[in-house]
């Protein structure tokens, strides 16, 4: 599932030219790219859904380690993560389903029901569409199967996991890029390379943690 429409969740194979004229289902023109690794994760999570039911669906987004694909899942990864509903089918059936979905996307016109279902997340709440753009394992195509109640619980769980991941990422970036870290008033950690590399010249630290900087381009008086 290399490409996915961010509006309706329609998926496209890698290198598909269909997307160039917009999503055939909803007309959307924003797509996200899912690298093969993500697709494998999605596949693993989906197979977890199939094998263990609701308890597993809650566990998978919380524990990224649990979403690591088992070796056996590598083969049908792309096939089983194309948005078709998890119906317990075995691997060959999943491949057939993908072909069917592709053929359907190329030829059929979407039904009004599909369009309504696809448009709902984007029109009701912009944040919801943002979330869908960052969804990971276990919910590759929520709008493709709007009747599946597991999708909703997955979304809320994944929101929490995403928040935690974002907070961790932010901390990591802060560690990496902040030139002066204020631990508390009077306690500072300095990133010398960052201070050296920055063109801005920090001339004053404020009590509230703000910087006053001298931006490049202003003339430094002799």
């Amino acid at each position, binding site marked *: 599932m290399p490409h996915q429409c961010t509006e309706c969740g329609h998926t496209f194979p890698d290198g598909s030219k269909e997307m160039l004229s917009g999503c055939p289902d909803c007309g959307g023109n924003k797509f996200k790219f899912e690298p093969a690794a993500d697709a494998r994760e999605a596949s693993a999570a989906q197979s977890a859904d199939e094998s263990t039911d609701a308890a597993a669906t809650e566990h998978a987004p919380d524990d990224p380690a649990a979403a690591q694909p088992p070796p056996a899942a590598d083969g049908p990864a792309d096939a089983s993560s194309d948005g078709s509903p998890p119906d317990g089918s075995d691997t060959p059936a999943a491949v057939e389903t993908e072909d069917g979905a592709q053929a359907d996307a190329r030829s059929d016109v979407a039904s009004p029901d599909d369009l309504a279902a696809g448009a709902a997340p984007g029109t009701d709440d912009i944040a919801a569409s943002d979330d869908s753009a960052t969804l990971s394992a276990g919910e590759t195509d929520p709008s493709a199967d709007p009747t599946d109640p597991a999708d909703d619980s997955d979304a809320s769980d994944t929101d929490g996991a995403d928040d935690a991941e974002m907070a961790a990422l932010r901390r990591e970036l802060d560690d990496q890029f902040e*030139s*002066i870290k204020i631990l508390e*008033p*009077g*306690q*500072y*950690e*300095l*990133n*010398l*390379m960052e*201070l*050296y*590399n920055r*063109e801005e*010249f*920090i*001339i*004053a*630290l404020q009590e509230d943690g703000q910087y006053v900087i001298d931006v*490049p381009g202003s*003339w*430094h008086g*002799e």
Partner: protein
Amino acid sequence: MGLLAGLRNSISNLFSSGQKQRRIGIYGPPNAGKTTLANRIARDWTGDAVGPESHIPHETRRARRKEDIEIERNGKSVNIDIVDTPGVATKVDYEEFIEHDMEKDDAVRRSREATEGVAEAMHWLREDVDGVIYVLDSAEDPFTQVNTMLVGIIESQDLPVLIFANKIDLEDASIQRITNAFPQHETVPLSALEGENMDEVYEKIAEYFG
């Protein structure tokens, strides 16, 4: 070297008498004796001082410059501006100053100013110096993150650099330890406080920055 600094140097060269004025930054960790050295050089050649000295770290919190110091050696003279920079550190903590009997408010303010001073020193290194005197306390371990990083930055800039092993009057001083830490650079032992070996100091300055 920044565009602005280059432009400024070009303009100053236009109006100078022909002899190039080199701006030499005195860098090093806190309490290495940078201001003591700057004062020694300034007093020896101009009679003025650059700034106050203290045994409390981060006494120098703004870069201070003494311009147009003419150093004569072996019949040659060099004109330099020396820039005494705040000591460079990766951590500044007000509790360090409280240990020197400072009130908390003063310690916090000093810490903040010292941090600004480090930022200023790093900015000067990027934009405004033509050579570096790197001052180390001979009685302290030179193998630190700050020393390695700063000397690396200076080398990456292709700036001429002299390592000054200061405080050789101290009992624990080890010049060899500093030579071992930076074998790629010339190490000059001295005591800026006692004025020991200043002849060699000025010879090397004239040789490297003249």
